[in-house]
């Protein structure tokens, strides 16, 4: 029986092209902005927890935004990725 080395019907170039095509297609025309987390995903609540509140978090952007979480953020809110602002 004939024995040959297996060679799939695509080459290295096609693999590399396929590997990068999808993300680049998706990128086209999009701003270089990474998506933030939804409030639901980080268990955001508009009230403090255990004395921790958004205005004391390193991610808070005054007056009512967050570097990492979507939507309006209360300075008195809290979520799971709260990180104490350096004093």
């Amino acid at each position, binding site marked *: *029986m*004939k*024995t*040959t*080395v*297996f*060679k*799939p019907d*695509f080459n*290295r170039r096609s*693999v590399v092209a*396929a*590997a*990068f095509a*999808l*993300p680049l297609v*998706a*990128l086209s025309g*999009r*701003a*270089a*902005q*990474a*998506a*933030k*987390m*939804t409030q*639901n*995903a*980080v268990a955001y609540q508009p009230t403090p927890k255990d004395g921790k509140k958004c205005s004391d978090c*390193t*991610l808070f952007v005054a007056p009512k935004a967050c*570097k*990492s979480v*979507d939507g309006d953020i209360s300075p008195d809110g809290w979520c*799971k*990725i709260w*990180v104490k602002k350096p004093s």
Partner: protein
Amino acid sequence: MIKVGASARDHIITIALGVLGLAVMTATLAPQSAQAIPSFARQTGQPCAACHTAFPELTPFGRRFKLNGYTLQGGDNTLPRFSFMFMPTFSHTKADQDAPPIPGTNVNNNLILQQATLLYGGQIYGGLGAFAQLTWDRVSNQVYLDGSDFRYAEKFTLFGKDATWGVTVNNSPTVQDVWNTTPAFGFPQLASTIAPAFTPPLTHIEGSWANQVAGAGAYVFWNDMLYAELTGYKGLTHGQLEALNEPGASTADGLNGLAPYWRLAVEPHWGDHYWELGTFGMYGQVIPGGITGFGTDNYTDVGIDSQYQYDGDPYSVTIKATNIMEWQKLNNSFVQGVSSNLNNRLDSFKLDASFVWDHTYSFTGGYFNVSGTSDALLYGASSAINSPNGSGLIFDAAYLPFSHGSPWPYSSYNARIGVTYTHYLKLFGGTSNFDGSGLGNTHSSSGNDTIFVYAWLAF
């Protein structure tokens, strides 16, 4: 007296690297935030503890960070998103192996630098991010592209609910998955690469495709609960694998056509309690050794998995169960006299539970069981009754000193220092003399019991 197998130079290098790493990390000044893959946290401004109960096991937030394409921002650090990881290890088995597992080691009690990895972890541009690894390992003594995942993700609204869609390009099926119930990041995440001498055979999706394929797929995560993914994989030729410097490239199996991989999971949560139930699987037509002319061995793997996680403060509990059923149609192996049966089954079951206190002290216990069709040609060399069946228990205890903080000035260290004990209840269908060789030692299941001490150091 402990006989240490590696050469004196290897020992000196291994110990020096370990001591250097620990000394630098424990020269503690004011603690600052620390990270699992440090570049991820430099990017997000989050501590390791945000994404990991005890790395690499993910928290709910860690899963969403990954689904979001590794692109979430928040940190002020602008260093390139590279990290470096190395892992000195010590492996001891209850009985000596018949021969040193690799050149330069001994039949037991081997201290080695098991692995060193350069990682890219983080945003590339916009919604495009990556977790990519270049690894050197002691066994192959090669630097190669290890399990890597490039992905693009975006938010949208579907049926009035928030959703994320994304595409993934990766080289190891399940490396893209976010639950630790699937093989790539399943327990145990760390194991010795040079011990024990005998382990049960595994289903194909449990590593056989790793670094041997290239795949692209799409996924959607809807309403913070429902996940669906479809990915197609193509095999890499020997030439392509050699170009990536993959170990064993010249004798690697081929893959005929496109191999589909699917994943469906639902994870509702109630407060800090998350419960996941899902399925995953893959179908591949394998050409053993890449040698055509004998047909293909067709493997259908279907996994069912479930995970309960309490992500509380100051502790977490994670319980995971995975059952993988594999149907093998061995057209190629049967014709070539490698298998006795044309059709075989092989099932792999895992159940484990972990308790992590304050993301710092981790304790995990697990049970595994592999069972399948007896096959004289496939398993006869290791089993007196031609059986693949094996089972055992695994216990891991680890200390993660930098989950919440690390020494100044470099606030991006992480470390997992631990010990894993594996006890084999059964191997290849037996307990004592399972292969009928009468050699004793590791030819009895408990002779393969392994104590594995590791330091997983990243910065």
